[in-house]
């Protein structure tokens, strides 16, 4: 099966500090569901940044969607970013835009006409339970509501890769289950999902998901299934 992401001896350091990620070698199979776990400071957020192209590796190679992007010109990156949905830990909603406009942003950036934006955005807001809060601005929303707007924004474009950093950290158990249901549904439709979380209950409630564990910036992959996933070509060492 094709890999949506391939990491080859990837390392990352910020400035002149020590490496926060070291020797990462793994592949994410297209259409799979992954949980990224590890203690605080293990490098989960940094790994996600590499995945959603917010950071370049300081060494090694990263292939996304079959393209080598580690040193790709920055002008080449936007089309790849549009294929990735990201749920940030701190939501990253634009404060002066309404919930509707925040969710609509990826569609507008992709060039959708206004008449093609209205329906999908209303539908998505209804799905995350915020149909009546469409015109509310983020500062007037609760943490959980902001989280749901952020998730709606991440999935509105039906991304091929969905990356979420603690997506259920600010919502109640019922909403967490609904959101995971959304992620699972998207995964069934072919989206590769990577969720960074500490929530063991969430992991156990998602059958078939694979675990990626980071410790001190390195990948714990004792069985080698991340490096050479079942069904993937086994040419890599």
């Amino acid at each position, binding site marked *: 099966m094709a890999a949506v992401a391939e990491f080859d001896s990837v390392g990352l350091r910020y400035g002149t500090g020590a490496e926060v990620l070291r020797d990462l070698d793994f592949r994410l199979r297209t259409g799979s569901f992954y949980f990224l776990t590890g203690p605080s400071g293990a490098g989960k957020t940094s790994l996600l940044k590499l995945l*959603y*192209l*917010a*950071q*370049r590796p300081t060494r090694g190679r990263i292939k996304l969607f079959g393209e080598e992007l580690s040193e790709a010109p*920055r*002008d080449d*990156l*936007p*089309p*790849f*970013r*549009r294929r990735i949905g*990201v749920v940030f830990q701190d939501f*990253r909603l*634009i404060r*002066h*835009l309404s919930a509707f*406009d925040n969710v*609509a*942003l*990826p569609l*507008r*950036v*992709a060039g959708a006409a*206004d008449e093609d*934006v209205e329906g999908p955005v209303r539908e998505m807001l209804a799905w995350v339970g915020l149909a009546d809060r469409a015109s509310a601005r983020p500062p007037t929303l609760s943490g959980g509501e902001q989280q749901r707007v952020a998730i709606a*924004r991440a999935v509105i474009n039906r991304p091929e890769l969905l990356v979420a950093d603690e997506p259920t950290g600010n919502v109640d158990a019922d909403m967490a289950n609904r959101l995971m249901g959304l992620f699972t549904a998207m995964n069934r439709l072919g989206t590769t999902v990577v969720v960074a979380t500490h929530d063991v209950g969430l992991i156990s409630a998602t059958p078939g998901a694979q675990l990626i564990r980071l410790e001190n910036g390195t990948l714990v992959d004792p069985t080698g299934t991340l490096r050479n996933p079942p069904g993937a070509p086994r040419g890599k060492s």
Partner: protein
Amino acid sequence: MFDWLFVSPAERRLLGAPRFGGPTPWVIAIMSFSIMLIAATGLALASTASLMSQAIESRYTLQVPGGAANLDALVQAVRSSPGVTSVEAVPESDMRQTLKRWLGPAAESADLPVPALVDFDASAGANLTALQRRAAVIAPGAQVVAHRDSVGPLLHSLHLLQWVAFGLVVLLSIAASAAVVLAARGALDTHRFTIEVMHGIGATDLQVTHLFQRKILIDALVGSLAGAAAAAVVLLLLASGAALAGELTGGATLGVIDLIVLALLPFALTVLATWVARTAVLRSLRKAL
């Protein structure tokens, strides 16, 4: 190419409250006002220099330092010379009247030697050496003086002032551009978070730049036109106002082409500001991933 001018209300909302406005239109208005006045002055000087140059190009004076007893013969000699198109003797009374401004009643004294002057126009092929030789026979010491030689330094000064005006227009345009760069950087800082989010979801640098570009275009256009309008009022007052102003400006007029140039200046300043803002924003964005 110009689709960035017509952004949707949703795109306009991305930059939130009009913080980019602020002092930018005012700075550009002041620059536009100054540029218009200086440019108008420069163009008027050019026009004056051109008029003066044309007027004196074929103008000469035959002067006899000690005066001429037989002025009529001298005028006749000049008139009959080939190439001379018009002749006019300057009356001695006019000369004394002029001298009176400096010398007072002493200018009326018969002891004061007053030169004889005969103004004439001559075509390009006129033989002035022969004319002077003929005049010298009638009035020894007679000498032909070209007006362009005596007014040359003044014309040179006028040309110099034109270039000074042009230089000031360029300097003010550079200053306006620097103000726009600062405003653009400030706007980028204000909206850094929005830009990061937009980049994160796949917006290109051009998409982000167009938002700022349109806003600076509006600010620059409003500022330029306001400054130009104020300058136009001042110029109209100067042109049609007090007699003193009229005397000072003398023959300085603005032609149709000059007026067209002045009318285009605010738009040129707007285009310059927009281009500078676009370049500054693009350069800043390229520093991010």
